């Protein structure tokens, strides 16, 4: 009996030690940086650092207008004639490649590449604003996981938290540079 108790004790201690040795899951931070002002002139810079765990918990508690319980309800008319889920299904089941290419004064490119959905926009033949969006497909899927006429932002944030460092959005024009990304640092660099 003593041997049995000792074995159980050792097993419990070993389990505790193993659990204690497990690294805590790394916190992911969403960073937003907006820099305004023409080159050479002092402009405004805004930096926001939000941990995704905070966003995950706070978003479902927000009940404002069309944003309820972490979901944005799209109005009648907004994308009502477009079945985003069907499009997403088609994109997910397709190999990497370019789906939409618009060439003209403004260039638009929508593609799937290494598990990411890419959207690139260049205005005025490259002289205007440039927008780059690079979102993991799992995040897009989570965003569209709700009802047909809603975007599940909370689910998208949860999905985002499972990814590593990602540069999500950059917008650049004459006066503004916007950058949205996630990493494990609590300070934007």
């Amino acid at each position, binding site marked *: 009996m003593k041997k049995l108790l000792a074995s159980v004790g050792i097993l419990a201690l070993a389990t505790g030690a193993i659990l204690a040795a497990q690294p805590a899951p790394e916190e992911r931070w969403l960073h937003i940086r907006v820099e305004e002002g023409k080159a050479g002139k002092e402009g405004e810079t*805004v930096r*926001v650092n939000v941990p995704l765990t905070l966003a995950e918990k706070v978003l479902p508690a927000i009940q404002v207008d069309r944003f309820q319980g972490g979901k944005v309800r799209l109005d009648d008319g907004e994308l009502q004639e477009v079945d985003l889920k069907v499009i997403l299904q088609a994109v997910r089941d397709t190999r990497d490649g370019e789906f939409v290419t618009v060439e003209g004064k403004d260039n638009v490119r929508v593609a799937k590449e290494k598990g990411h959905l890419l959207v690139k926009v260049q205005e005025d033949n490259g002289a205007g604003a440039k927008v780059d969006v690079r979102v993991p497909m799992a995040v897009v899927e989570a965003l569209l996981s709700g009802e047909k006429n809603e975007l599940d932002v909370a689910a998208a944030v949860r999905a985002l938290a499972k990814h590593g460092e990602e540069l999500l959005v950059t917008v650049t024009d004459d006066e503004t540079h916007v950058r949205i990304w996630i990493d494990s640092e609590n300070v934007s660099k």
Partner: protein
Amino acid sequence: MNNNQKGFTTLSGLLTVAAAGLVLAAGLVYDAGAMRISVREKRPEGDSFRIMVPAAIVPLAMAFVPDRILKQEMPPEARAALPALRIAVEELRNLPDGPLVEVHGPGEDVSIALRDGMLAIDVDSDDEEVHVQVPLGALESAASHLVSANESS
């Protein structure tokens, strides 16, 4: 034991309890931290003041405001934001020190950060300099009180 001795023992006992109560209260006040507000006007001969208030006063002061009044005076937008605010404040406790929001512009710098268990708000403009530090415990207590006042019938 004569009556004098008995009275002395009772008095000393009461004093000991009172002293222990004071030490405990002082400990609780110290533990809750202090809110610091400092404002300095930059114009010549401008005013400046600094106040430091024990954060333990926050729940005490809020207890004197009837829930009915809090509920009446609260704007609907604030009411809708309360549950999210309470969760956000609770979550702030789990975060490391660091900047949450920084705005640097011509003529004004604003920073909201977590510093030593406090929410620190610093504003430095051409006209004035404002620094506010609020212990997270005080914020949490205020948010909880507002939520319960809002939920009261």
